[in-house]
């Protein structure tokens, strides 16, 4: 084997380390943030308004959050990356954020919005009867949520979550657009520097193996939760 091969492999692993770091940090921040956004969009805080004889309930928090989620889900993640990285500098002449921080910020916001909708779907899919059963047994609201509803929500959201998380693995490659040294960026650099195309193609192996592992992990979680039906 010639030395260029090992140089390529080494830098691919280096790039993949950045990819993994972005993936892990996004999950760590976006999973809880998604729950907060979910509660915000389900919030019923507000007031009644009479409009043309029809009484309507206005919930400002929920409306605001829903608009935000609409914007984030309605625009390309790539565009959001560019806006977060270049936007503050162009608009307010602020210093640029470090590239990785900008990417992480964009990913966390974007994925938190998607997660929030998955959470919401999960929470709203729990039948009223479960809450009512808790109520007639004298349980408090928080006892009902944490002891009755939550585990059922978890079970219901594992399949859509795994889908979204596997998408995230591959979306990390978008950070290449603002020159974060993740695996695609590293592989692509060999086209110009050494005239090699195979490093780019071989990145697929990294993604495939990692997504394969995640699939196995989520399969195991689903099996672990299969002792009850909801």
């Amino acid at each position, binding site marked *: 084997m010639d030395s260029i091969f090992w140089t390529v492999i080494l830098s691919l692993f280096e790039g993949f380390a950045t990819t993994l770091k972005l993936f892990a940090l996004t999950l760590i921040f976006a999973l809880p943030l998604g729950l907060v956004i979910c509660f915000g969009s389900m919030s019923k805080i507000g007031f009644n308004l009479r409009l043309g004889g029809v009484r309507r309930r206005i919930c400002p928090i929920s409306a605001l959050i829903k608009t935000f989620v609409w914007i984030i889900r309605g625009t390309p993640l790539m565009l959001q990356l560019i806006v977060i990285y270049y936007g503050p500098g162009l608009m307010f002449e602020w210093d640029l954020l470090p590239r990785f921080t900008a990417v992480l910020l964009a990913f966390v916001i974007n994925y938190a919005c998607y997660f929030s909708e998955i959470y919401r779907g999960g929470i709203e899919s729990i039948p009223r009867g479960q809450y009512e059963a808790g109520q007639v047994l*004298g349980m408090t609201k928080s006892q009902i949520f944490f002891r009755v509803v939550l585990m059922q929500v978890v079970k219901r959201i594992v399949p859509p979550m795994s889908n979204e998380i596997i998408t995230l693995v591959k979306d990390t490659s978008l950070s290449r657009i603002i020159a974060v040294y993740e695996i695609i960026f590293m592989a692509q650099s060999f086209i110009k520097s050494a005239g090699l195309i195979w490093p780019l193609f071989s990145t697929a192996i990294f993604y495939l193996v990692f997504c394969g592992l995640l699939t196995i992990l989520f399969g195991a979680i689903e099996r672990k939760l299969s002792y009850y039906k909801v």
Partner: protein
Amino acid sequence: MAILEVKNIKKSFGKVKVLKGIDFSLERGEVLAIIGSSGSGKTTLLRCLNFLERADEGTISVGGQVIFNGADAKTENEAVTRRKRLHFGLVFQSFNLFPQYTVLKNITMASELLIKGEAKDCREEYEYNRKLREKAYKKELKATRKADRAALTERHRELEAKEQAAYEAHMSAINANMKAKLAEVKPHALDILAQVGLSDKADAYPCQLSGGQQQRVAIARAWALHPEILCFDEPTSALDPELTGEVLRVIRNLKGSDRTMIVVTHEMEFARNVADKIIFMADGVIEEMGPPEQVFDDPQSEKTRAFLHSSLELTGKAD
């Protein structure tokens, strides 16, 4: 004295008047069956009794004590409502067991939480009172002359020490009591489980049981809290016909004890044999009320007669 007294309960959903003034009372140990066609307000009545819906008007008294009055303000502390709810138990049409817990845990969970909640309430009450005393003391301290402050501080310290000691004694009594009660929960649940004939299913999950078994667990779960009045909302309507018998048998067996029960049902035969009192509801009012012999054999109202005729015809038992 009547254990349950319901007076003039009214409930509307938007413009639809579902209950138009319901009055009845129930003696301890009596079984009341509520019959009537769908949409007559039977289920809504039960839900009002269990505080799952708030009645618009009327009063509900348990053991002579008014626990609900429609005239009162709508904002009520959640904890107060929770306590009132415990006068009643409710068995749902669709069981509503907690799927992620075993049968035993389904039965014991609420009792355990309630027992633990008591100790917590005691702690919080003490903390709250302590804060009040602290506030009063600081206020007093400001108002006193400097020379007298030392004496006041001393007095406050003594009082606090006494209160603390009293609280600790109280808490340890409560904790001991709590532990004793917690130790009883499981054997008690197993005992009830045996009475509904499901001893061997204690460690099963709800999804492993048949509908009839699930409903029997749901009955055990409601029963375990010893509500004064146990309500059943069409307990057999979601079951296959061959499974209704086992559930009805369990309910009938409960009757022996001095348990007061309200059963909303479409099982006319069951209502006639088990109930001490029948209420026939139509369009949100009690159309007819009385002992089963009277309501079934000699109905006074035309509507009752029509309803009984059609429902008995269905089961092929019309004369």
